[in-house]
Each structure stands twice: as C-alpha cells, then as structure tokens.
C-alpha cells in the first residue's frame, strides 16, 4: 500500500460519494449482543460496515483506530458497556479517557473527531445498535470524504 493512505481511494471516481466504510469494535458483553440482535431482526442497516467482536472496549488499541483511518476506512466505532457495568474492573473508563484524547489528536490534524464513534452503554439493545449506526452513517455522510486527506497532500494543495 506504500504511501497511499487510503485503499478506499482506489477506484473512487471523481465526485462520486461511495458509501463510507466503517468498522465497529463491539464489546461482546453488550454491544455485540445489540449487533447480533440487529442482524437477527434484519433491521435495515447501511451495508458497508464490519463488526469486530472484542472482549472489552478497552481491548481496542487506539493504534488500530489510527491504522483503520490510514487504510481509508471512513469511520470507526468503539462500543462498550455502560459505565458501571464493565466486567473487567472499569476498563471501559480507561477506554473512554483514551478515546477522548485520541479524538483531540484526530481533530488537530483535521480528521473530524466525529469519525470516531464511542458508545458506552447505549448500544446493547438491537434497536439501539441500529440507531447508533444509522446516526453514525448520517454524520459521516455530512463530512468531506477522508480521501481529501490524500488529495490535500498533493502538489495541488500548495498551488492554492
């Protein structure tokens, strides 16, 4: 992949907005239940996302989120348990703190912090999960595509 920061850019036609690619890390004690439920109930959901089950939201290294963006994935969700309910001694607290800081970094470089969806305790029912995802996709559609980053870093940029 070299220095192309976005797989998703390849094949992207000028001006056409592809459906954003989204990865959702879902803690298996709650959010995954919501995800599974949404699947079982065949809730209408946008197609282009993947759920990655994790033991705990805190298991998600911020590096994975950063790497996802570098691959051109448009949005990353980290869904965990409500704040009193973490099986792993409030590991979700630490996840929240970490992810809030990551949002600051993303925002600094112009990657909208809205691309990092965090949910702790709001995704474990199937309709909650579906709602969150729909809202997330909606938010992403309102953002300039991430491959703007790639295009910003080209010769055209400094002619401006």
């Amino acid at each position, binding site marked *: *992949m*070299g*220095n192309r*920061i976005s797989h998703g850019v390849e094949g992207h036609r000028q001006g056409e907005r592809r459906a954003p690619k989204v990865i959702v890390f879902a803690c298996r004690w709650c959010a995954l239940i919501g995800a599974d439920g949404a699947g079982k109930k065949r809730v209408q959901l946008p197609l282009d996302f993947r759920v990655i089950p994790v033991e705990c939201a805190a298991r998600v290294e*911020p*590096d994975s989120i*950063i*790497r996802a*963006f*570098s691959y051109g994935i448009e949005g990353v969700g980290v869904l965990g348990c*409500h*704040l*009193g309910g973490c099986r792993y001694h*409030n590991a979700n*607290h*630490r996840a*929240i*703190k*970490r992810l*809030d*800081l*990551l*949002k*600051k*970094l*993303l*925002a*600094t*470089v*112009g*990657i*909208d*912090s*809205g691309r*990092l*969806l*965090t*949910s*702790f*305790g*709001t*995704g474990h029912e199937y309709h909650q999960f579906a709602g*969150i995802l729909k*809202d*997330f996709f909606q*938010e992403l559609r309102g953002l*300039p595509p991430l491959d*703007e*980053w*790639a295009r*910003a*870093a080209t010769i055209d*940029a*400094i002619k*401006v």
Partner: protein
Amino acid sequence: MTILEQARQIARQSLEQGRAQGVLGLREAEGGVSPHLFEDPSDIDSLVVEPKWLLAKLATGILKGLPADYRLAVLCRGCDERAIVELIKRNQIDGEKIHVIGLACTKEQARACLCTRPYPSEVAVGDVVEGVDPFQDERARTFLEGDQRERMIRWATELRRCVKCYGCRNSCPICVCVPCKLEDDLWVGRGEIPADLISFHLIRAFHLCDTCVACGACQDACPENIPLMLLQISMRASLVEKYGYEAGTDRERRSPLLSDLTKEPSPGCEVPGWMDSLGDSA
C-alpha cells in the same frame, strides 16, 4: 555571575563534594560542542550550556551500565527534567541515581520552543521566566485551531515532507520501546517515503499522549521542519483541563489515563451511567 559560570560552579561542586560521581552536560572542545560525562572537576572549565541538547535520552543509556553506587548529575533544562521524571515513573531510570542540576531557559529560548514551562522544578542556574502559550502563537494556531479543512491541508502538506528518518522517534527522550511499533510493517508501511502520514505520525503522537513533555526534540530533529510538537498540544491541553495533569511535573502522580473515572478527574466525582459521542450522556 553569568549563567555559564553558575552552571560550572555547581557542576564542579557536585563532583568535589561527592554529590555525584559524574556530571552529564555539554563540553566545548576543539571539535565544537558535544555531550560529555564530566568526572574530573578540572574538566568542568570546558562545560557549556548551549546549544539546546536533550540529555535525558543520553542519561537513560549511560545509567544502564553504571555501578550500583554511581550517582549521575545531569544539567537539565525544564524539558529535560520533565523527561527524566517521566522516565523514572516508567522505570527506565532509577530516580535514586539521578541528581538534577536545574537550568532555567531564557525568554528567547522559551519563545523558540513555544514552551509553557521553561524552567525545572528547582532552579540552580539562571532565572525563571514566564512560559509562552502556544495558542498565542500565530503560526501554531493555524495548526491547532481554525477552519478544519484548512488545518487538514496544512497538516497534510507538512507531513508529506516526511523522509522517514525516524529522527522524531530517535530523539524523543520518552521513546524507549524495543521493539517499536513504528518499525512493524503491520502498522507502518515500509520502503517508501513519506512514512504513512496517518499511521506513522499519529501512532507516534498518540503513544506519547499522556507522557509528552513538550521538549520539542522531535521537531528539532526533523530535517524537513515539520512542526511535530504541535501534534501534542491539544492532547496536553485536554489533560490539563480535565485532570490538571501535566506530564513530567510530578514524580508520584501517574497518568490519569491509568485510573477509573471515579478517581480521575477527581476522587468520588459523578460518573454518568452511559455516554456516547452522538451527543447523549446521562
């Protein structure tokens, strides 16, 4: 007494009075200035305090091979001392073996580094001057605030000059991990420049999120003048705002990221039952 004379006097005394067996500082010899481990008080005549040279990094390596009873004095600016504090907290340096000789920076030096705290915890040499707020610097602001799209273009334009020298990582006093993730091709592509703009630079920046001491060694080392330290500023500001935490200023206090919300921001604080970034929390 000039700053230089002060520094030399204290360094000499540290050796003569046995407070330390060696002083890590800078020496001016026929070749110019380079780091030096002064062990003989008579050598101290060649000790200098310019240019800015982060010694914390060197101290970590030197200390590893020293005998058990060896105390190393280090001539430290504020940033150097903060780095040493962080390294002590992370068990890279034995705090008992380090003796900090605190050196305050001048106003010009503070401005050059956009440093908020241009002085160590105890100042033995020089006079304390007020820090500089990076958010007041016009150029820095264009990287931190303002229109998001313009900021994105700004950062992308800078970061794509990267030649993957690893200078930022190599010169950072806090970066000591072996192996380093930035060398793993699972995370960062290999064999091309620039280094992957997002994964190399944001992974590096985020690994330091709660431990960066804003020494600026990263951007000093960057051959392409990328303002790397500005990547850290918003995270540092957030830690100050939410937790009153500034890396390197307290030898005991651990990073707030390592504790429950009930302990940091403050013990017993109210924690919502659930929250999400779509704007809801209760």
